[in-house]
């Protein structure tokens, strides 16, 4: 079975982001989606630290540490961008003004519960940032992650065992082997890569899966 690389996953997510969307890309792998946004679409990236209209990383000489993204990496501002304070920035999220946010995850449940901030490991120092606000506030929450852990357990689960970030918030899950729509009725496979059969995918995940694909 061939799995998508992270770049391929990022490109695949990017394809689903429509012209005109206001998008927040989470820290880590989701940030890579920015590199694959189609050049013929205007898509406006929001950063929780008070930026709308984020552009690509600057040349070394143009780095400005007052212009960084949520991952604290230097970025640029497009013409038409704007700065605002944290109150307004999180009003954008909480108030459902962001069309799509893309987040990473430790686990996602078939009904869209999200666990992505804390593994609950003893002695770990918890940090939550803006994850819970994005999860609850964006109109659509896309998660991108490998379907399986390194030790072979499905990260798409019936019920999250890690501490939750939000309940029933994930609308779509992009993984390295399949794409799922999530909701109250559970998970539905809408796209598969790498030639797995539906049965094989169900066996891997251990959760019941509906499918929109031709049998």
């Amino acid at each position, binding site marked *: 079975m061939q799995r998508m690389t992270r770049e391929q996953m990022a490109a695949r997510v990017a394809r689903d982001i429509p012209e005109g969307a206001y998008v927040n890309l989470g820290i880590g792998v989701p940030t890579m989606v920015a590199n694959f946004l189609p050049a013929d679409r205007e898509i*406006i990236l*929001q950063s929780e630290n008070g930026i709308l209209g984020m552009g690509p990383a600057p040349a070394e000489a143009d780095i400005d540490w007052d212009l960084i993204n949520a991952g604290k990496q230097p970025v640029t501002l497009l*013409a038409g*961008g704007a*700065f605002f304070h944290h109150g*307004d920035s*999180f*009003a*954008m999220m909480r108030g459902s003004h962001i069309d799509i946010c893309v987040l990473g995850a430790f686990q996602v449940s078939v009904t869209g519960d999200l666990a992505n901030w804390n593994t609950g490991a003893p002695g770990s120092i918890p940090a939550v940032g803006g994850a819970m606000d994005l999860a609850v506030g964006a109109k659509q929450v896309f998660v991108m992650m490998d379907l399986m852990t390194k030790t072979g357990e499905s990260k798409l689960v019936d019920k999250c065992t890690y501490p939750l970030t939000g309940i029933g918030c994930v609308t779509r899950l992009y993984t390295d082997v399949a794409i799922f729509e999530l909701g109250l009725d559970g998970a539905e496979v809408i796209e598969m890569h790498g030639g797995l059969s539906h049965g094989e995918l169900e066996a891997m995940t251990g959760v019941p899966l509906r499918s929109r694909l031709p049998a």
Partner: protein
Amino acid sequence: MIDKRYENAREALHDVFDGAAIMISGFGDAGVPHELVDALVDHGATDLTVISNNAGGGEIGIAALMKAKRVRKVICSFPRMAASHHFEERYRAGDVELELVPQGNLACRIEAAGAGLGAVYTPTGFGTLLAQGKETREIDGQMYVLEYPIKADFALIKGLTGDRWGNLIYRKAARNFGPIMAMAAKTTIAQVSNIVELGAIDPETVITPGIFVQRVVKLVPAAAAAVAAA
């Protein structure tokens, strides 16, 4: 390409529907999108709920809506003003329901809607007629009233300058309710005096980022047009 510009007020208002809740910015005359409201009168939508600081004065704007009997309910802080006879007539006739809200509660309920809060405890109005029947709570020795968000289907606001992404700046005290109403409505329609190229508005000085504005239409205020023509 994102282009939120509309050719004229009629097109910008094309999908307003009977029964819609409509926010209208302004305090006194400053910041009232008179030309948009006039176009709303022409549009014909009726049974409207109007959320605004005032309930209209004179013959234009909200007063014209009142006169044309398009308003079912007004949520405002100060309906009684110079020449508010059209509101008064409809109100006394029992045609228009009035929800009177202290101005700061109006502002913070609109802000709560824009920011996705479920409700807020505000000290304003506690122990008064305007808090009658509302839930109250003592917090840290002070009494508060529970107030719920005010949302709208449309916000009609007035900026000075906009661009095709919907970024706005305002003019002096005409800013008033514009920025917070833009955040609280599903569809925000901004009339502006000028539309400029993307990037012409300094990103440090944008007051309403485009994410809160769905439509921008250049409308020369009638008074300014009269001056220009003279």
